[in-house]
């Protein structure tokens, strides 16, 4: 069944009663608790129509175990908080329908490669902040304009759309967790960095040249370290064009020397 397929038939009270019995195997571990060690704990609950993993996790926390830790904010695939490893692959809990699993057993692990806060909750914020500072993910504009009320130069709608396409990244870190290179080499910046570089490189307000970009990502921690395993491309919840953007940057950076 398609992972994103939503049941189309009408929902009756019977459906709710007859839902499958789901088993969620969840990794539990609190690094703050002395002597605690990682273990898998099984929870069972009745599947409801249109149920996402986010709903299922909330139900478990409300009805079975209030100590279960996982992150969420928007429940709509916008905030990028609820990323976790679902049956081996990184994804967003709020965008994953339980109906998409042919087997009613789902294994949940925290994202690898990040500081574990507890259970399924990881600190991606620190990584994203450091990354942002490392690549300068902001517009490096020309020296300030003469007057504060000076009009910004207009931008072609096509260009604005290209920038927006790359700006859709929600920094959920799925591309980082899906990247074999990054899991081997912690200093590798990963697809989230490349998509941001590509975004600011496109922006006519940003004054950085390719030589300057080369200083930032023209090395083995940057674009030349990418082994083209393409986990980022295949598992990005926002379907961002990682493969083309990394290839594009690689060509531009190779041309910048």
């Amino acid at each position, binding site marked *: 069944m398609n992972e994103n397929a939503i049941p189309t038939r009408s929902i009756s009270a019977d459906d709710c009663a007859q839902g499958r019995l789901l088993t969620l195997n969840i990794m539990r571990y609190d690094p703050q608790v002395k002597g605690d060690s990682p273990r898998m704990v099984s929870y069972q609950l009745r599947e409801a129509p249109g149920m996402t993993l986010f709903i299922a996790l909330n139900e478990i926390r409300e009805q079975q175990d209030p100590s279960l830790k996982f992150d969420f904010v928007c429940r709509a695939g916008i905030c990028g908080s609820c990323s976790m490893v679902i049956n*081996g692959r990184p994804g967003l809990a709020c965008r994953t329908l339980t109906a998409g699993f042919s087997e009613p057993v789902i294994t949940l692990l925290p994202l690898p490669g990040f500081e574990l806060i507890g259970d399924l909750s990881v600190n991606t914020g620190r990584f994203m902040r450091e990354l942002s500072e490392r690549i300068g993910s902001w517009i490096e504009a020309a020296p300030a304009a003469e007057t504060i009320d000076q009009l910004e130069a207009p931008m072609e709608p096509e260009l604005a759309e290209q920038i927006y396409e790359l700006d859709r990244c929600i920094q959920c870190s799925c591309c980082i967790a*899906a990247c074999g290179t990054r*899991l081997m080499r912690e200093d590798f910046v990963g697809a989230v960095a490349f998509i941001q570089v590509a975004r600011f490189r496109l922006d006519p307000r940003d004054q950085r040249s390719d030589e300057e970009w080369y200083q930032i990502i023209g*090395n083995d921690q940057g674009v030349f370290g990418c082994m083209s395993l393409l*986990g980022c491309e*295949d598992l990005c919840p926002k379907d961002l064009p990682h493969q083309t953007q990394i*290839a594009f940057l*690689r060509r531009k950076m190779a041309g910048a*020397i």
Partner: protein
Amino acid sequence: MDPLQSRSHFARAMPARLDMIQSVSGLILALFMWVHLLLVASILISKDAMYWVAGVMEARFLSADGHGYPWLVALFALLILVVFMVHGLLAMRKFPANWRQWQALDSHIRRMQHGDTTLWRWQAVTGFIMFFLGSAHLIIMAMDADKIGPHLSADRFISEGLWPMYLILLLSVEIHGVTGMYRLAVKWGLFDGDDPRRTRTRLKRLKIALTLFFLALGLATFAAYVKIGLEHAPQAGQRYQPGLDQSLAPGVHSPEGKHG
């Protein structure tokens, strides 16, 4: 320019250069291996065809005595060996460098079950095998460049007992080469076109088709040399003489033995 500055520019440009050299050397080797297989597969047509191909390779048509210049083949084998070593050296940078990295990658591959990631391990494993067997093969070819022909090559398979090496090399090189070409295309976005995702799907299909084609052709060629090697074992070391099928005439001594 200030020597410190020029030095730092050189160092800065290195990652880009190394990446490009890795790609270009891989491209050369993959293309070479495809041509190589097509050439050695001439044995499937006939011994004469393979004899002719070997003759062209050593420029037999240029030499007055018709013996050609086997050192050309030796030189070419050494050139390929150099490209091969450069490629291996650069590709090695991507290998897991310690137990922690190996473990991280291994558990990642098992967990994700993601095609292109899993395939990378096969590329690394086959590459590692070729480090040793490929080098051995190239060195043997450089040293025995005058002993390439329908009978002497087949003798290497059976009478010199090298068939396991050739079989492992064949499997490794066909998987590694086609996978590498696919990765080269997606890595540099070579055929992206209007719809890079559709391109990638097609490249994946092409990759499977080419792998199957080269494996089938390679295994058929392998079988042909094994068969000839078995038939020719009693006269191992004797050269092939065009137009005279020696496997049917045991005891006939070849007058062709220019090199021994």
